[in-house]
């Protein structure tokens, strides 16, 4: 069936819920091994779909998105409202938060870069930081069990 929205958009619910495969497969309350990272990507709002698509292709599932405003050295926009001319110091950005096991860090970072890059100033930043603990609320799984949809 031809889908106006583009095929992958239909998969979004799967991305948000994480993989259904983990449900019931693993014992609850099993503590994962190894370390985890929180990957934060600040990107252009208009690149949101590209980033989601490349994350999906990289098999990085499970993201949280928020709308943020920030300033990172890009040129200010000048806007005029009647007699008031202002320099808009803050630009609209999207913040992706992706909790992954170490194995997925490179994949996530590369996917963020690939999806968000335009080559112009203002493409955004990626921050990777250590993550102490993660819990999947539904099952009580922790750490790797909670952030890694497919055991690797």
């Amino acid at each position: 069936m031809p889908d106006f929205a583009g095929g992958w958009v239909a998969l979004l619910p799967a991305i948000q819920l994480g993989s259904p495969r983990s449900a019931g497969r693993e014992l609850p309350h099993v503590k994962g091994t190894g370390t985890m990272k929180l990957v934060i990507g600040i990107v252009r709002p208009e690149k949101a779909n590209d980033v989601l698509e490349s994350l999906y292709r990289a098999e990085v599932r499970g993201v949280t998105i928020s709308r943020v405003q920030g300033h990172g050295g890009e040129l200010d926009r000048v806007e005029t409202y009647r007699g008031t001319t202002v320099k808009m110091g803050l630009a609209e950005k999207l913040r992706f938060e992706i909790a992954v096991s170490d194995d997925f860090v490179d994949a996530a970072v590369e996917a963020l870069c690939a999806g968000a890059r335009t080559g112009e100033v203002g493409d955004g930043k990626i921050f990777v930081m250590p993550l102490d603990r993660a819990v999947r609320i539904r099952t009580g799984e922790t750490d790797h069990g909670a952030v890694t949809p497919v055991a690797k």
Partner: protein
Amino acid sequence: MAPLDFVAATAVDPGDTAWMLTATALVLLMTVGLGLFYAGLVRSKNTLNTFMMCIAALAVATVTWAAVGYSFAFDGDGSLIGGFGHAFLQGVDFAPRDGTTIPHLVFFAFQASFCIITVALVSGAVVERMRFGAYLVFAALWSVLVYAVLAHWGFGGGWLMANGTLDFAGGIAVEMASGFAALAAALVVGARKDYGRQALLPHNAVYVVLGAGLLWFGWFGFNGGSGFGVGDASILAFTNTLLAPACTLVVWFALDLIRGRKVTAVGAATAIIVGCVVITPAGGYVSPGWAMALGALAALPCYAVIVWRPRTRVDETLDVLAAHGIAGFTGILLLGVVAQESWNGVSDGLLYGNADQFLWQAIAAAAVPAYAFIATFILLKVIGAVMPLRASEHEEALGMDIVQHGEEAYVTGEGAILISAPDAAETETGVPVANPV
């Protein structure tokens, strides 16, 4: 002609004039309503640009209409185009316009409001990517080369009118012209960069519904004023403008239920427009019962085109073709079937034994879309050869509001730094909340 009729036809009637002044203002409000309707249908970063395309029609089309557009449409009875007799409002004064009981100035203003809304309608095909400057040039030329010509054909004494084609309020010059011009414009300007790759959704459905409501409200002036007074034809058209869209809404609800199991608000807004459009050519010529039938019938082809069009590569963004072109085509054609002389005093349709009427409606339904499409296509190709029609991909991604107008619809002011504030230096209080450098 009886002497009494002659006297009546040359005197200004205060009642007719009062209504036509009101109707003109109502039609002007439609353009703002259309701006709201269109603005709600686009993404938030293009809200103002989309609205401004309608406001620009108020500016540009009024000027071109006063300069030559009105003259081309309503001066003389040349078969293809009028003359220069009324250029720059020459001879447009307090005396009644021929064939009406309202001052020529009022007739001019009423017709101007039609030209404005038609130009604004076409913008729906090119929103979210066309450069504002190129659009202004297009609007100016289109209002003269396409609208004024088709207005002459349909109700200025041109060949369609002379041969008896019926068009009460603009099925020819407004609805079919804008719809098929929109298709040509979408083809020449090209699709938005994300079209077909991402879901490009309406950002504010409330604007859409409110805009449609304002359009319906204004349409009582549009159709109800097209009898140029308060005679039977105007009264009939006024009430038919209530009946037809209501029936379109009911059928649209049913189609929505069948297709998606839910009745949608954006669909309802669209149905209101479709219903108003289909009754535009037929308003003063068909019985209230047939008006209801026309409203119901028009839902079917328009709904089909609206479902089908997004599956094509043609990014006719706000479906002007479906809502105006197809609905106007349906109205012009079916008017030739169900017109009743007992209601309109002018002519019967096919169903009442007058096949000629249907023939001339069909000729109009073929010729007008062809002219609108071809003329618009050529016009935009020529403009495109002189200046770029569309913004760059980068600009399109940023949004046309910031790029074309240096404004945002939903600005927060957070992080905004005053640049030019005369008081700031003296009081030192006008300076910015934050300076994140």
